[in-house]
C-alpha cells in the first residue's frame, strides 16, 4: 500500500519537474555559474597581484638614465626607459649616448653593463668600443621573450672619472623600439638582478616548453592508439606548434631565410585556434563548420609571410594574429564556463581557471603594447600559457585515471555478472541433469516393472490358480520354477555388464542348460568368434531382458512342442561393410511347425502368442528376428542392431 503511494508521489514529482523545467534549470545554471564566476574574479585578482610580484627589482644605485638620443637625424636629451618611433628598416637605428663615472678605487671587481629590457636588439659600446651586440643571440631579439643582457666591460676600457656609453637600438616594426634603464656598475652588484630575470624569462619558459614537448608526445601516442578521438590529435598538433615556436631560432634580418619567420609568427594564432578546437571536442561537443574560421587569421599571416617580405607579416600578425589569440582565449573561456555549468567536473574547472589566467595576462600585454600601463614592456602571455599546459596535463591525467577507475569497476561488475551467470547455468545444468537422470530412472523402472508384471506376476498368478484347483505335481513345480527363472533373469539384467552382451548370455547359458538337463536335451553352445559379440556401450537392462526372453522362448518352444533332442546356440559376429553386428541363432532338431501358413493354425494358441511376443520384443530393441521351421527342425535367427535404440519405440 505504502509502496504504491510512494510510487505515485515520485511519479507526480517527476511529472512536475518535466512540465516546468525552465525555472529549476535556470536556478541550477545560476547556482553553478555564479560561484564559478566569483572564483574567476578571485583568480584575476590573484593573477594581477602575482604579476606585480613578478616585476623584478633592479639595482637602482647603478642606473644610467640620462641620455642624449639621436633619432631620424635629430638629437635630444631623453630619460630612460624610452620608446622610439616605429620603423621598418634597420638602417640608421636610434643612437643613445650617455655617461657614467668610474673610480679606479672601486675597480677591485670587474664592471659590467646590464640591460634588463630592450627591443628589438642593441649594440652597446663603452668609450667607443663595442662590448655587447644582442643580435648574435637570436632569442634575445624576440619581443615576447623579455630577455635581459649583461656584458663585462674590459678593465682597460674604463677611465678614471667620466666614461661614455653609447647604445644603438635596432628596431624592426611594427612595434615601437624600447630601451629600459641601462645599468653600469660592479658585476657583483648587477649579476643577481640579471640572473633573476634570466631565471624568470629564459629558464622557466624552456622548462615549460620541455613540458609542452612531453605533452605533445603523450598526446600524439594517445591519438595514434585512439584514432576515433581526434581531440588528442588536435591538441598534439597545437603542442607541436608551440614547441617548434619555442625552440626554432627565428631567422633575424638580414638572414636569408627570413621569410620562414612567417611560420613562427603564424604559429601563435593557429595554436590558439587549435586549443579552442580541443576545448570544444574535449567537452564532448561537435565542432561547428563555421568554427574553422578561427584558423583563417593564422593562415593569412602564414601565406602573406611566405609571399611578401617583412615587415608585412609582422604588421599582419599584430593586426590579425594577436586579436585572434585574444578571441580564442575568450571563446575558450566561454566554452569552459559552459562545461563547468553542465558537467561540474575537475577537468573543466582546472582548464577554465587556466584560461582565465592566460586571458588576464593577454589583456595586460595588450595594455602594455598600447602603453596604457607601464610595466617596462614585460610580456607575460607566453609565460602564462604554461598554466594552461599544466591544467591540460592535469585534466587529461584526471580524466584518464577516472576512465581507468570506470574500466576497473566495469570489469568488476562484468566478473560478478559472469560468475552469477555461470552459477545460474551450473544450477540449471545440474537441475536438467537431475531431471534427465530421474526420467531415465523412471523409464527403466517402468520397463522393469512391466517385465516383472509380464513374467513373474503372470507365473505367480498361475501358481496360485494351479494350487487352488488342487493340481499337484509337475505343473505347479514348472510354474514356480519358471517364476524363479524369471526373477533371476530380471535381477541378472540389472547388473552392469558394460555393454558386453556375452556376459548376459553366459548367465543365460547356465540357466538354459540347467533347464535342459532333466529333459536330457543337449545344449550345443558355439561362439564363432573368440571375442564373442561386438560391444554395445548403449546397451540397457531392458534390451538385455528382451534378447534373453527371445532366446528363452525359443528354447522353451523347442522343449515343449518340438520334442527336440539337441538345441544349438550359435553366436556370431558378421560385417556387411557397415560395421560389425551380432547374430544369435537357436536351432533345434525337433519336428518343427509351419509358421508361414497361419499363426493361429500353429500347434496351438500359446505357440502363436509366443511367436508374436518374440517378434515384438525383437522389434523393441531394434533387432531382426527370422524364423524358419520344417520337419527337420526350427531355426530362430536373431540379428542384433549395430546400435541399440535409446527409446522403446515399439513399446505401444
Amino acid at each position, binding site marked *: 500500500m505504502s509502496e504504491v503511494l510512494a510510487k505515485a508521489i515520485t511519479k507526480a514529482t517527476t511529472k512536475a519537474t518535466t512540465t516546468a523545467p525552465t525555472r529549476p534549470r535556470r536556478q541550477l545554471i545560476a547556482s553553478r555559474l555564479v560561484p564559478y564566476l566569483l572564483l574567476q574574479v578571485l583568480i584575476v585578482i590573484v593573477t594581477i597581484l602575482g604579476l606585480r610580484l613578478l616585476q623584478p627589482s633592479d639595482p637602482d644605485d647603478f642606473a644610467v638614465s640620462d641620455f642624449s638620443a639621436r633619432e631620424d637625424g635629430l638629437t635630444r636629451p631623453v630619460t630612460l626607459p624610452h620608446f622610439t618611433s616605429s620603423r621598418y628598416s634597420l638602417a640608421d637605428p636610434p643612437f643613445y649616448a650617455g655617461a657614467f663615472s668610474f673610480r679606479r678605487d672601486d675597480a677591485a671587481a670587474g664592471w659590467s653593463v646590464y640591460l634588463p629590457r630592450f627591443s628589438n636588439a642593441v649594440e652597446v659600446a663603452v668609450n667607443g668600443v663595442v662590448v655587447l651586440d644582442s643580435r648574435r643571440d637570436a632569442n634575445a631579439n624576440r619581443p615576447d621573450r623579455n630577455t635581459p643582457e649583461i656584458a663585462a666591460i674590459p678593465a682597460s676600457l674604463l677611465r678614471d672619472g667620466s666614461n661614455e656609453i653609447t647604445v644603438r637600438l635596432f628596431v624592426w616594426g611594427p612595434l615601437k623600439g624600447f630601451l629600459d634603464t641601462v645599468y653600469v656598475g660592479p658585476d657583483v652588484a648587477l649579476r643577481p638582478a640579471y640572473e633573476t630575470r634570466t631565471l624568470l624569462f629564459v629558464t622557466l619558459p624552456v622548462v615549460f616548453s620541455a613540458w609542452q614537448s612531453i605533452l605533445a608526445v603523450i598526446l600524439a601516442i594517445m591519438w595514434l592508439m585512439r584514432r576515433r578521438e581526434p581531440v588528442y590529435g588536435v591538441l598534439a598538433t597545437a603542442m607541436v606548434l608551440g614547441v617548434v615556436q619555442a625552440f626554432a631560432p627565428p631567422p633575424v634580418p638580414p638572414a636569408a631565410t627570413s621569410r620562414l619567420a612567417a611560420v613562427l609568427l603564424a604559429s601563435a594564432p593557429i595554436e590558439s585556434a587549435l586549443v579552442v578546437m580541443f576545448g570544444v571536442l574535449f567537452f564532448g561537443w561537435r565542432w561547428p563548420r563555421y568554427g574553422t574560421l578561427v584558423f583563417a587569421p593564422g593562415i593569412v599571416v602564414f601565406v602573406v609571410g611566405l609571399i611578401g617580405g617583412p615587415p608585412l607579416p609582422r604588421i599582419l600578425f599584430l593586426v590579425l594574429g594577436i586579436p585572434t589569440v585574444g578571441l580564442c582565449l575568450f571563446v575558450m573561456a566561454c566554452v569552459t564556463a559552459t562545461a563547468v555549468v553542465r558537467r561540474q567536473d575537475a577537468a573543466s574547472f582546472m582548464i577554465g581557471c587556466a584560461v582565465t589566467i592566460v586571458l588576464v595576462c593577454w589583456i595586460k600585454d595588450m595594455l602594455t603594447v598600447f602603453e596604457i600601463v607601464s610595466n617596462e614592456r614585460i610580456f607575460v602571455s607566453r609565460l602564462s600559457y604554461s598554466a594552461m599546459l599544466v591544467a591540460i596535463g592535469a585534466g587529461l591525467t584526471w580524466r584518464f585515471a577516472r576512465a581507468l577507475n570506470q574500466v576497473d569497476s566495469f570489469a568488476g561488475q562484468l566478473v560478478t555478472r559472469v560468475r552469477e551467470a555461470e552459477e545460474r547455468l551450473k544450477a540449471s545444468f545440474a537441475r536438467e541433469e537431475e531431471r534427465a537422470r530421474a526420467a531415465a530412472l523412471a523409464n527403466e523402472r517402468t520397463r522393469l516393472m512391466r517385465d516383472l508384471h509380464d513374467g513373474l506376476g503372470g507365473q505367480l498368478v498361475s501358481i496360485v490358480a494351479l494350487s487352488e484347483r488342487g493340481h499337484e505335481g509337475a505343473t505347479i513345480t514348472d510354474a514356480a520354477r519358471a517364476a524363479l527363472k524369471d526373477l533371476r533373469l530380471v535381477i541378472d539384467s540389472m*547388473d552392469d*555388464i558394460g555393454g*558386453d552382451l556375452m556376459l548376459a548370455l*553366459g548367465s543365460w*547359458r547356465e540357466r538354459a542348460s540347467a533347464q535342459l538337463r532333466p529333459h536330457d536335451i543337449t545344449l550345443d*553352445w558355439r561362439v564363432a568368434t573368440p571375442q564373442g559379440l561386438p560391444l554395445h556401450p548403449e546397451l540397457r537392462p531392458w534390451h538385455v531382458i528382451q534378447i534373453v526372453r527371445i532366446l528363452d522362448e525359443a528354447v522353451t518352444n523347442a522343449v515343449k512342442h518340438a520334442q527336440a533332442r539337441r538345441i544349438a546356440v550359435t553366436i556370431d559376429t558378421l560385417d556387411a561393410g557397415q560395421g560389425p553386428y551380432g547374430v544369435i541363432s537357436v536351432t533345434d532338431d525337433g519336428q518343427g511347425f509351419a509358421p508361414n501358413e497361419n499363426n493361429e493354425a500353429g500347434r496351438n494358441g500359446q505357440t502363436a502368442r509366443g511367436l508374436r511376443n518374440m517378434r515384438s520384443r525383437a522389434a523393441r530393441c531394434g533387432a531382426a528376428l527370422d524364423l524358419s521351421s520344417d520337419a527337420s527342425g526350427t531355426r530362430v535367427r536373431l540379428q542384433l542392431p549395430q546400435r541399440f535404440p535409446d527409446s522403446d519405440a515399439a513399446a505401444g
Partner: protein
Amino acid sequence: MTEQGETGEIITILLVEDDAPTCWRLQDALVKAGYEVRSAGTLGEARAALAGGAPRVLLTDLRLPDGHGIELIREMRQRFPDTEIMVISALGDEESVISAITVGATGYLLKDAFPTDIATTVRDLVAGHSPISASIARFIVRRTQGAAQNSAEPPPGPVLNTAKLTPREIDILWGIAKGFSYAEIASHLGLSKQTVPGHIKNIYRKLEVHTRSEAVFEAVQQGLIKL
C-alpha cells in the same frame, strides 16, 4: 546305493536350513544319492551337531533364526579345515556367495536345483571341483579390474582381495563369465581340461581371508584401516 569318498567311507553331510520344506527337499535329494545327512534348523542346533564330530561336507543357509551362516562357516573352517563348505542360496546372488567364500566356503548350491544337480554338485565338491557361476565369475573379475584401475569409487558389495589372482586365473574367470565351457576355456588358454576346476578351487582359496590377523593385514593392505 551309498556315496563313498576316496577312502571308501560314507560321506557325511551337515545340512543347516531353517525352512522346513526346503530342508526336506535337499535332504531327500542327498539321501537318495546315498549321503548320510544330519540336519539342523538353527546355528545352535548346528553347533550341537558338530560336537559329535566333523562332517565331510557342511551345507548351510546364510540367514538363520539365531545368527548368520557366515559365523558357522568361519568356525567350521578354523576347527575342521578338511570339511568342504557350501552355501545354500535361493538365487545364487553374488554378494552372499562371495562373502561366504571370503570366510572359507568353496561352493554354493541353489535351493531350487534339480535333485540330480544337487547330488552332482556335492559329489564334484568332494572330488575337488568347486562350482562357479557366470555372474560370480563376472563379479570377481569386476573387482580385479576395479582394484587395477585404482578407481576412486570402489564397486559396491563385499570387499574382495583379488590381488593374489594370477592373470591365467583371471582369464579363466572371464571365460566363465562369458559362458564358455571348461573345455572351451582350456582350449583357448592351452590348458588341459582337467586343470580348470582345480584353478577355480584355487581362486576360491585365494579369496578366503584365513585368520583374524590376516583379515586385519588385508584390510590395511587395501587401505580400509589406517594404523
